[in-house]
């Protein structure tokens, strides 16, 4: 190997390693989470701070009354028996407003990000 060839090869290796360092390792796929909203004393608990598409929302009804989690726009209509729970997996980003079909003052909202 001539000196010139060696220099070209060394430069190529340097360039390649610099490129790899700039890109870094590929980002790990996000693991979907289950986020719990507790229903108690005729109130939906605080919504999750961050909810992503693919996450699952679980409503846990701690009341002695039957409730529902019913999306205003019809994406879901979940019965929540007294002491029971129900889940819904978020399919798209946006704001979901929902209510209890039995107790009209019970209102909730979830903001879903991609």
């Amino acid at each position, binding site marked *: 190997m001539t000196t010139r060839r060696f220099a070209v090869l060394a430069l190529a290796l340097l360039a390649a390693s610099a490129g790899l360092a700039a890109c870094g390792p590929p980002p790990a796929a996000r693991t979907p989470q289950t986020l719990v909203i507790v229903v108690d004393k005729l109130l939906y608990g605080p919504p999750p701070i961050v909810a992503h598409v693919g996450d699952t929302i679980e409503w846990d009804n701690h009341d*002695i*009354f039957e409730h529902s989690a019913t999306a205003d726009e019809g994406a879901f209509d979940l019965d929540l028996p007294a002491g029971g729970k129900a889940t819904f997996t978020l399919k798209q980003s946006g704001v979901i407003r929902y209510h209890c079909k039995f107790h009209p*003052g019970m209102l909730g909202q979830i903001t879903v990000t991609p």
Partner: protein
Amino acid sequence: MFRPLAIAAAVLTIASAAYAAPAPTDPQIAHIAYTAGVIDIAAANQALGKSHNADVIAFAQEMVRDHTAVNNQALALVKKLGVTPEANPTSASLTVQADAKRAELAKLNGAAFDRAYVQNEVAYHKLVNGALKDTLIPSAHNPELKSLLSTGLTLFTEHQMHAEHLAAELH
């Protein structure tokens, strides 16, 4: 005229428990609250036997379910506390007036019954909520009884709102 008079009489009856000495005791409060639930369950059962309107039937089923749950909780609480609910003129008067209202509603059918039942539910829950807020909750001494009454007020306020929405649809 009968309805406003009956409601005014009921309001006066419950209010007198607060303003005439002595204030109702915890056993009396428990009896009044339990009786109020029993009355609404009886009204709902009448509706379930007469109405063919799906929304009215769903509302009546909700009244049976929710008031039964509260009353079961109340029974468990008085048992735990070793308290015997005490019959009193207020709960007796509520029962007499509710019997008269059911007899009045029994003469109606179809849409006329639905409207009258739901209108009475609005008035009745307004009456009970006023009594809970102004008389029964402030007079209750036991914290667990007070807490249950407060949950009842939240629940019955939801019922009043639901009945008002239904009344607007049936009008």
